[in-house]
């Protein structure tokens, strides 16, 4: 009986029920997706048993890049350290087995180097092989199950040989694939012993800063204390003297707890997430919940005059106020649960689409089925909480007035409703201006003058066969009228990965090293401040250097052009100083760097092209490359696109936030729409009277719009400073940032106003064009 009455009344107040349902589905769907995403990001690296004792070492100057020899020094000197690891990420490589090679089968696989205690420190699961032994010996490797299947099918892999970039390794262990929620992952691990067997000199070992050091500390040891102790180790004092003099009292070493690693966006080796973004998303989820509730309360209280009359009839027949309230709360609960069901169904259909659209993961339930219960509990609480106020409100008029259905509610609760709508527009305007600001920052990065001429530049990765005929290949390409110029280098701009640590005249310096050919400086129009560029078409300058201004200033050199600088097995003269330009992400400041003139590192070929049919041009370049190396496939890319990828992460999160903002806006619009429907209904008589007295349709529409404009203006005044502060915080993170502009906020206000007015007009137009005779017949 109760249930039947429940559904009857939900169906009876159709407009209200549909609007409520619509706004709840929008709200719930957003909450489901955001909470799954945030909880997924929060679950990263939580499966390691030792996670509370694991720290990653970094330096103030060069982040996570360290010389591997530090591990030895730390092990010897710091008893607080239980175990330590050296890791090095190699990225993608070609792997195969001797058998597969015969059929020319290769796979691209990620590989990394790890020292022997890898499986003791981390809780990754080893399926075959012994924890303590698998990475102990030189030229051994552990591969994941997936790679094992690729390489060996069903056959046992242990003891077999695999090659990584033509280097042979013996498989000593098979591990489970890395969990999705591990910050780093790879397809195969090679032993650190492979590296140490080279017996490099101590000087060489100190000069290669490209390794990661992981420390597992004993229980109850403070990571920061350990970090501070490192620089005092006698073996290291000399090495870090220079930095010490530069950074003064600041600690050179810092540790990052493994629990926080996933949130350190400066770590480019692993999967990270911006913690600010996570916070924003949590706030957005709360905003969605609040907005959903606001709509709910608004819609149900605007039904009050009708509901109150109907309920009072049952009260005249003997039921009491409490059961009236109970009915309204039960209705709220029912609608909330129905909305949840619909939301879950929609979620299930769209989540993978959203994942690929914004290049994010973690929206699948994937074993997190307990979330269903959390959502149900949420919907129940939501339904009850948002039912209480309307229940009290609707059942509030004394029976004698309720039964007449007269204007008891006139003006009552109107203020609250207006405040709630204003609140929604506060959110909308703040979100909208944030989205615009993020766009502006992305655009700023895109348009930034890097100090090198990157327009119309394309590049391709070379192979050893191309490198062997580098000049011939380039000359062949220049025959194409669309290709104007070329240069060979080891790295394309934005991806300079080599760091050099060198001792020179008793001073230890660290900088980025960029091996380039004789044409590079000219090719990119890099300005030389002092001295000269490398001589073109001459080998005279081989192994000489050009430094950037930043390096010279940082190192405090007064006569650099008279200095020789140590390379690998040579020393070379510094022939010029380049004006500072941006060779890496604009998220960071310009770092000290040098160009090393060499003909030995032609990994990348950059071409300056004329505007042309690029598809055809790229095909011609690829075909030509294939002539020189038939066994390989080539990819030609625009440098611009590759540079933009540096900001891909920001772009994806920006898009995601923009999307959620629009989602919130949808909710605000539903809210306004609902209010206008009800306001138009409540003012039917007034509109009729005004029309009889000569009001034109437009004047009536304006009348209804006017009220909302006032509230949106108030929302604008509240939202602007909030958004301003939040955005300022976000921008703090970047070295190069756009300016905050007033028009962003003005535009957000105008857009919100326009959208609200379109919604309002659409509805109030219907009310205004009604025949006033009908309206007045209501009386």
């Amino acid at each position, binding site marked *: 009986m109760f249930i039947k009455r429940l559904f009857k009344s939900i169906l009876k107040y159709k407009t209200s029920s549909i609007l409520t349902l619509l706004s709840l589905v929008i709200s719930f769907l957003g909450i489901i997706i955001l909470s799954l995403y945030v909880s997924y990001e929060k679950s990263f690296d939580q499966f390691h048993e030792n996670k509370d004792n694991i720290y990653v070492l970094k330096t103030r100057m060069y982040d996570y890049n360290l010389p591997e020899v530090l591990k030895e020094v730390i092990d010897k000197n710091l008893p607080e350290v239980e175990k330590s690891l050296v890791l090095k990420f190699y990225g993608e490589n070609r792997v195969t087995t001797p058998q597969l090679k015969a059929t020319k089968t290769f796979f691209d696989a990620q590989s990394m180097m790890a020292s022997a205690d890898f499986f003791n420190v981390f809780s990754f699961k080893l399926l075959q092989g012994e924890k303590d032994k698998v990475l102990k010996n030189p030229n051994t490797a552990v591969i994941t199950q997936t790679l094992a299947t690729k390489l060996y099918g069903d056959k046992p892999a242990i003891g077999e040989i695999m090659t990584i970039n033509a280097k042979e390794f013996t498989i000593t262990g098979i591990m489970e694939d890395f969990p999705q929620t591990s910050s780093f992952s790879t397809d195969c691990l090679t032993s650190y012993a492979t590296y140490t067997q080279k017996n490099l000199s101590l000087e060489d070992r100190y000069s290669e800063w490209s390794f990661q050091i992981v420390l597992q500390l004993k229980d109850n040891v403070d990571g920061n204390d350990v970090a501070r102790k490192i620089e005092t180790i006698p073996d290291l004092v000399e090495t870090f003297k220079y930095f010490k003099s530069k950074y003064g009292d600041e600690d050179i070493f810092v540790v990052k707890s493994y629990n926080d690693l996933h949130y350190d966006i400066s770590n480019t080796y692993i999967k990270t997430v911006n913690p600010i973004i996570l916070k924003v998303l949590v706030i957005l989820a709360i905003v969605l919940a609040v907005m959903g509730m606001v709509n709910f309360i608004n819609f149900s209280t605007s039904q009050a005059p009708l509901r109150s009359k109907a309920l009072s009839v049952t009260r005249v027949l003997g039921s009491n106020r409490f059961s009236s309230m109970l009915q309204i709360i039960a209705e709220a609960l029912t609608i909330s649960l129905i909305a949840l069901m619909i939301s879950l169904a929609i979620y299930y259909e769209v989540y993978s689409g959203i994942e690929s659209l914004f290049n994010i993961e973690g929206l699948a339930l994937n074993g997190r089925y307990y979330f269903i219960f959390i959502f149900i509990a949420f919907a129940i609480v939501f339904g009850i909480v948002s039912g209480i106020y309307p229940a009290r409100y609707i059942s509030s008029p004394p029976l004698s007035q309720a039964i007449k259905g007269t204007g008891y509610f006139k003006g009552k609760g109107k203020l609250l409703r207006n405040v709630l709508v204003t609140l929604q527009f506060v959110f909308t305007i703040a979100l909208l201006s944030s989205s615009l600001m993020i766009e502006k920052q992305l655009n700023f990065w895109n348009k930034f003058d890097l100090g090198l001429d990157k327009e119309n530049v394309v590049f391709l990765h070379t192979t050893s066969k191309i490198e062997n005929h580098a000049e011939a290949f380039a000359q062949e390409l220049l025959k194409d009228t669309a290709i104007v110029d070329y240069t060979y280098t080891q790295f394309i701009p934005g991806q300079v990965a080599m760091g050099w640590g060198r001792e020179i005249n008793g001073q230890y310096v660290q900088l980025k090293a960029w091996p380039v050919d004789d044409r590079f400086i000219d090719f990119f129009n890099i300005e030389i401040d002092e001295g000269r560029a490398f001589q073109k078409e001459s080998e005279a300058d081989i192994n000489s250097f050009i430094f950037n201004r930043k390096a010279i200033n940082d190192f405090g050199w007064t006569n650099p052009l008279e200095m020789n600088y140590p390379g690998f097995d040579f020393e070379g003269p510094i022939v010029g100083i380049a004006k500072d330009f941006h060779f890496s992400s604009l998220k960071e400041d310009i770092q000290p760097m040098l160009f090393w003139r060499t003909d030995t590192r032609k990994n990348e070929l950059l071409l300056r092209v004329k505007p042309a049919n690029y598809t055809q041009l790229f095909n011609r370049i690829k075909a030509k490359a294939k002539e020189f190396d038939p066994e390989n496939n080539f990819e030609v890319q625009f440098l611009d696109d590759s540079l933009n990828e540096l900001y891909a992460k920001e772009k994806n999160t920006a898009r995601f936030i923009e999307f959620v903002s629009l989602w919130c806006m949808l909710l605000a619009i539903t809210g306004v729409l609902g209010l206008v429907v009800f306001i138009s209904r409540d003012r039917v*008589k007034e509109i009729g*009277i*005004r029309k*009889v007295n*000569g009001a*034109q349709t437009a004047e009536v529409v304006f009348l209804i719009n006017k009220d909302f404009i006032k509230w949106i203006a108030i929302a604008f005044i509240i939202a602007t400073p909030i958004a301003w502060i939040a955005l300022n915080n976000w921008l703090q993170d970047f070295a190069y940032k756009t300016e905050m502009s007033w028009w962003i906020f003005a535009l957000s206000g105008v857009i919100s106003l326009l959208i609200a007015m379109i919604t309002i007009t659409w509805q109030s137009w219907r009310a205004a064009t009604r025949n006033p005779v009908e309206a007045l017949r209501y009386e």
Partner: protein
Amino acid sequence: MIKTEKLTKIFRTEEIETSALNNVNLHVEKGEFVAIMGPSGCGKSTLLNIVGLLDNPSGGNYYFDGQEVGHLKEKNRTQLRKGNIGFVFQSFNLIDELNVYENVELPLIYLKYKAKERKQMVESVLERMKISHRRKHFPQQLSGGQQQRVAIARAVVANPKLILADEPTGNLDSKNGLEVMNLLTELNKEGTTIVMVTHSLHDSEFAHRVVNLFDGAVLTEEVKKQLGEVLV
């Protein structure tokens, strides 16, 4: 001033079609005071709405001041209605959120009078309707008679040529009713044409002419007084 030819009005809902007016020919001279009488549902109010340009007829012609207006668009009807026709309703139809002054001012706003002119016109009509002492009050704070006087004030404030009254005394006691009828008579004397729908024989005595409507058609017309004859 008003001339209808074979006026018909048909209301359609999904299931039924009701004919509210059936070939009504009505003629009202300038300066006349005409009462329309008849039982409930005979089409009195429908006729009044069409005459008042609130609604279009389904068929036939309607000439207002010699101009055919039966097929105008809503926008043009509103335009023509403004300032030319004033309405008085049984239920007063004042806007609850506006006070007496603002209610009366309403038609002047839509006629785009300047604030100063509006003030003058509203004050004078309130004075005349003997309601100016309550100009700041809201409709709920007034008696029925007072509310109807405000409604009449609003109907006449723009000096319309025609006043349409739909049972103006229906919600009033006899004393207040008489007062309203006297007001209407006075306005008529000053030259305003009045068409009034009423149930009350007593009220119809104030008119020059009574048109009896039955089932959407004119049944009889009786002339009570000659135009120009001094009314009661």
